[in-house]
């Protein structure tokens, strides 16, 4: 059904390495692109800015983390720290008077530099020990943010972000913010879609699968690890900066704490390692569902006439968020992207799935 391979013949290498080999995939992508463009006219403004906008920016960030964790196979528990570097550099640059286009790039490059420091840990250890090192680096970044008033305005202080302006146009409307987020997310998605088809992407996958084997094939794993960290950090930095510029409007250290790093990793793993569509699902699930569950509990309690403690209500989203991670990992360790892939595979040959190998 829907996804049909019949009638799809590749007669040249160019056709075989197309991004969307199945017409249905392409149609779906075009549909969502059009929906995304039309969203400000369809979706009520409150949903647009409080749900869709953070969802899109976080998806871009999660794709960046997926690049280093899913593609290059390096555990990263300090992603929020890298985002913080980008956010603070960009906001400081913008406050200094640099145009926002350049401020964003400065943020991304600053993140790349700091993010490459994380790569030096990856050059020495991997697996659990890499995770612990990056976690420790995240704690150090937290500490630096809380103890350097020149950067953050000090503990409990916040840094006001100047009005976002691109190409000389100040952006103040809800739709404007949304389009900026949408544009960035599309850009990152296109980059990631193409990554699979390039030598870089294949080299990263080789490093992930086995670095010895990659070295034998002539892939310099050190070089590609640093490249993966730098590229993902660039995406993190710009995403962090956009998050502050279009969503929070204030930069505070709490926005980039350890919990946020764990949240970013949860988005990627729940979504599926190395899965692009999965990152969209994962971010939606981790970012939006806990709130929905909370509203649900409140509504049920209201209809039943039961009194729910305010404190209980405040902690239910957290419990739900943890439970979601556990449940998804139990159902399908490869994440929502894999679940989607299973459905797609099934529909591909439906109703003749008994012929599937």
């Amino acid at each position, binding site marked *: 059904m829907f996804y049909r391979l019949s009638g799809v013949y590749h007669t040249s290498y160019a056709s075989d390495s197309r991004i969307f080999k199945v017409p249905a995939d392409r149609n779906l992508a075009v549909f969502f692109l059009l929906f995304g463009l039309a969203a400000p006219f369809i979706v009520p403004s409150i949903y647009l800015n409080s749900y869709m906008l953070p969802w899109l920016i976080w998806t871009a960030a999660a794709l960046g983390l997926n690049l280093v*964790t899913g593609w290059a196979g390096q555990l990263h528990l300090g992603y929020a720290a890298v985002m913080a570097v980008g956010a603070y550099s960009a906001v400081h640059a913008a406050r200094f008077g640099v145009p926002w286009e350049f401020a964003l790039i400065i943020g991304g490059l600053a993140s790349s530099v700091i993010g490459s420091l994380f790569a030096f840990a*990856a050059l020495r250890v991997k697996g659990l020990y890499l995770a*612990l090192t990056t976690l*420790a680096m995240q704690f150090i970044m937290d500490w630096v943010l809380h*103890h350097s008033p020149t950067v953050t305005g000090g503990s409990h202080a916040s840094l006001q972000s100047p009005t976002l302006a691109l190409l000389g146009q100040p952006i103040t409307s809800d739709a404007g913010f949304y389009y900026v987020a949408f544009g960035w997310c599309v850009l990152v998605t296109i980059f990631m879609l193409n990554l699979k088809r390039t030598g870089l992407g294949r080299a990263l996958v080789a490093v992930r699968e086995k670095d010895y084997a990659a070295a034998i094939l002539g892939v310099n794993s050190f070089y590609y690890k640093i490249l993966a960290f730098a590229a993902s950090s660039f995406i993190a930095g710009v995403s962090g900066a956009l998050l502050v510029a279009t969503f929070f409007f204030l930069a505070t250290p709490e926005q980039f704490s350890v919990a946020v790093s764990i949240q970013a990793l949860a988005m990627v793993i729940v979504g599926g390692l190395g899965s692009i569509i999965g990152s969209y699902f994962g971010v939606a699930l981790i970012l939006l569902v806990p709130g929905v569950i909370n509203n649900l509990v409140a509504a049920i309690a209201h209809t039943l006439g039961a009194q729910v403690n305010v*404190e209980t209500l405040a*902690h239910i989203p*957290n419990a739900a968020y943890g*439970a979601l991670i556990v449940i998804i*990992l139990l159902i399908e360790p490869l994440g929502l992207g894999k679940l989607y892939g299973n459905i797609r595979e099934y529909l591909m040959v439906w109703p003749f799935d008994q012929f599937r190998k």
Partner: protein
Amino acid sequence: MDWVFLAELALNGALTGLLYSLFAIGLVLIYKASSVPNLAQAALTMLGAYVVLALSRDVGLPLWLAIMLAAVIMFGLGFGIERVALRRLAGRPIIMILMMTLGLDIFLRGTTLAIWGGTSRSIELGVSYEPLFVGDMFISRINLVGAGVAVVLFVAFMLFFRTRTGIKLRAIADDYMASWSVGISVERGVGLSWALASVVALAAGVIWGEIQGVDQALSLLLLKGLTVAVLGGLDSILGAVVAGIILGIIENVGADFLDPLVGGGSRELIVAAVLILTVMIRPHGLFGRHDIERV
């Protein structure tokens, strides 16, 4: 240089460090048996303290009975967590196992706080807050009690690993396949290690709960516990105890020197630095096995 003051800092640091060891022993037990880094240990610690509080305050049991009963509950809970959540992920890449324990951590913490609320409460073990004077140095009594518990637990585990069950656990830690082939139930052994770690978490939770109150801050012990476990070598209980003492001293003395320089709060920084340096220089820690996967 005031040597008495330095000695006092070092001694109190060592005692606090033994409390970190108490926490780290739980991590080590699980890692030894199943190579799972249990990042949910902090949540278990917090949960243990809350269960004791609930049993003693809300049900009204005497404290010793509440602790006993809580130990039984935590034992069962540890077994259950392993059975439900971790066993199905056995053999999966480390990243999924890490994420599972992180998910468990978030879930347990959220659930605990949703049930009992986040306001800080004290367990009231009945240990006097009067400091104890040794010569010119003064020592916190509760830290002394906690350090005592850590040492007792350490000795208990050393003896336990000489019993029949303990030898089975050691065999599992050494080689999964070989244990299977001689008829040791690896699943039960790993489950047991989780159960024991949960009971250790309870002990840590009660002592820490007495020191700083039972609240969310208990879960901030994770970084320190992890650092102690890694510094000692992730699979050595002796390592956890020694590393706890070392980290406690470094942290307490170092913070005294660094705090005036950086304007306070340098403890976290020192701990994170110790963790990074350990992993960079000696990933297998002081007493750990040498087969750590290097790049």
